[in-house]
């Protein structure tokens, strides 16, 4: 009996040791964030990808993110809202703390607005009180930067937008994007000193307008040209996809690419218009090439940021196309890195209110009209009209008093906007959803990512996996 207990203890300790060893083996962390990529979006994108591949049963397809072996369910509520926005949603992962909606990597007591509800920002410039409104919450990027890791931030949105900003900035209101931009410029006024003397190594995304003064078509009211300041700080600056492709990555340590005045184009428009912008996979690949030269390891955050925007517009097709572009970036990373020493985490910051509707027949186009699984005939509503598989719980949506009699060709068009339940009216007004989202993980230390997790727990799990 005693031996049995000892044996059990040994097994227990051995298991714990194995866990510790596994948890300490990640040298690099790549954190993929699909903004607003809830479970329905992911499922629909999987089927859509299967259709594009010509699979007989598209539902059987697996996205790259779904091929990562470990999975968890994430609770996303913020400090003050059942439904989070992107700022506290992502900051929870990056800081391990809840925060209030609209706040970027600050402690939970930080308010984005004054007592009268007026935001602490004006036209992109912060008016956050210098004291008495919370404290900075250290981010994973800052922690790793201080330990000598390489650091990179990549996004299809403005690089000053909420999700990327939570990795390197601290501010009480997410809309103060001019101020956020200044926090990444080494040595400049307003620089975040936690980013070290030389700053983030790789920065790729959009948002040029927050780096340029109003006199040059930007939105900066302080007259500064941060593009010049970044180059003076040692960065190689690129502004197009072809320029990025032309960079000698092996000889570049500091890369700063800003490819649009605002957000990068949706993937569908980038491809159809043959626009000179890099894909998310292109940017991810370039970032890995540079960061992987750091022998101490690296932190890379990659955001598929426009999934969220297309969903706000109830434009499912663009949302799915951007989800697939995001997935391609994940596949690129998996193919380039050594999974023995690299942890890859893929998740979202919050859900949206897109629903997967009815009992559609297997193989039915996921963007199409719903056909009954038994008969293959169009499903009809109470007014005798067909409807699509994907719909939204709320949003601006088509502003018709009564439902249109939709046709298959119409609902498959690029610009088709799905129908909505609760009409909020305003363009882009579809809301985030408060439901749980998925996380998948693979590579070194990934086995801890399982079960139902609060979003703030992910911060600790990543550090455990990296032995911090």
């Amino acid at each position: 009996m005693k031996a049995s207990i000892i044996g059990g203890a040994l097994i227990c300790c051995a298991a714990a040791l194995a866990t510790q060893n596994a948890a300490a083996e990640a040298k690099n962390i790549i954190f993929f964030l699909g903004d607003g990529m809830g479970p329905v979006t992911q499922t629909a994108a999987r089927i859509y990808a299967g259709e594009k591949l010509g699979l007989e049963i598209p539902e059987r397809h697996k996205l790259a993110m779904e091929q990562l072996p470990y999975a968890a369910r994430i609770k996303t509520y913020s400090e003050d809202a059942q439904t989070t926005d992107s700022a506290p949603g992502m900051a929870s992962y990056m800081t391990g703390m809840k925060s209030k909606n609209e706040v970027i990597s600050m402690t939970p007591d930080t308010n984005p607005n004054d007592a009268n509800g007026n935001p602490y920002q004006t036209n992109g410039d912060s008016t956050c009180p210098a004291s008495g409104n919370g404290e900075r919450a250290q981010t994973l990027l800052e922690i790793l930067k201080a330990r000598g890791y390489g650091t990179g931030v990549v996004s299809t949105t403005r690089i000053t937008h909420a999700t990327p900003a939570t990795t390197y900035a601290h501010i009480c209101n997410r809309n103060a994007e001019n101020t956020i931009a200044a926090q990444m410029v080494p040595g400049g006024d307003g620089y975040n000193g936690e980013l070290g003397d030389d700053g983030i190594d790789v920065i790729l995304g959009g948002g040029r307008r927050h780096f340029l003064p109003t006199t040059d078509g930007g939105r900066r009211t302080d007259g500064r040209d941060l593009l010049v300041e970044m180059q003076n700080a040692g960065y190689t600056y690129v502004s197009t996809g072809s320029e990025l492709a032309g960079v000698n990555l092996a000889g570049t340590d500091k890369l700063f690419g800003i490819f649009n005045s605002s957000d990068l184009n949706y993937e569908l428009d980038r491809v159809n218009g043959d626009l000179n912008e890099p894909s998310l996979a292109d940017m991810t690949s370039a970032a890995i090439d540079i960061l992987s030269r750091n022998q101490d390891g690296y932190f890379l955050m990659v955001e598929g940021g426009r999934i969220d925007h297309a969903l706000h517009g109830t434009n499912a097709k663009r949302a799915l196309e951007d989800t697939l572009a995001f997935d391609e970036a994940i596949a690129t990373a998996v193919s380039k890195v050594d999974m023995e020493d690299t942890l890859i985490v893929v998740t979202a910051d919050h859900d949206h209110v897109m629903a997967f509707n009815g009992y559609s027949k297997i193989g039915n186009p996921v963007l199409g009209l719903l056909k009954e699984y038994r008969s293959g005939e169009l499903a009809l509503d109470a007014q005798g009209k067909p409807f699509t598989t994907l719909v939204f719980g709320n949003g601006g949506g088509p502003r018709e008093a009564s439902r249109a009699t939709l046709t298959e060709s119409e609902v498959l068009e690029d610009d088709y906007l799905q129908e909505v339940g609760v009409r909020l009216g305003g363009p882009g007004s579809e809301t985030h959803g408060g439901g749980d989202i998925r996380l998948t993980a693979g590579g070194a230390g990934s086995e801890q990512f399982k079960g139902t997790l609060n979003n703030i727990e992910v911060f600790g799990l990543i550090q455990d996996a990296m032995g911090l």
Partner: protein
Amino acid sequence: MLRVSKGGRFRPPFFMEKENVSKVINRMGCLAVALVLMMPPVASAEPVEALRVEYQQWQIGRDGVRQQMDYAETLYREENALWIEREIPEAAEREHDQHAHGGLGHKHADVVGAPLWIRRDGQGNLDVKLVDRHEKRLIDIARPYYGNVGFDGHWAESWALADPRALESLKPASTDENGRETYQLERGDHSITLVWDPTGRYAVSIIAQGRQGLSGRTIRATPLAAPDNMPWDDLGDYRDRDYSDLLD
């Protein structure tokens, strides 16, 4: 080529080509169809500069419920400029303002029912702006976002309520003493009557009715006195913004 309009905000007319009849028939339940003909309107006499357009739409579902929608818009027009503004009763506007601006917390920019200002250059390219009077912003709307502001991208149908080029191959059923032409169309289960004013260059009325009496749609346009100033003349202190500013 027939294309179905997306938004319900500015309903283009429902005049159509024969090859698209079956598609149109399917669509007549909501009667939201338009021709995709982006060619410039046929120039003639001075067009009417301002129109009040009343929209009415109704239908009876298989549940026996009759639904009806009515609204009106004012159109201000120059050869290559169009302003479309929804009529919003003062009480509704007041309630809306109190709701939209009285609370704390995260919210999307509030531009429900905001006017659209559309301009066209010599190559037919469109410049679409959403006019946010509350925040004094001109919000640039790029092509991928037209649907989100209820614009289907069709200049001619938006400017004149019907595309005059679609009428050129048709013979009017009658012409009244003012030169207004009436066109009658039978399309599947629907009858359409369109009255065109070639001088003022707009559709005076478009009436569609399902023969089974389950749906109908009417657009009626009334000329207004030419304004002293066009609404776009008063935007000097507006800030330029873009659609991305409406998103979080």
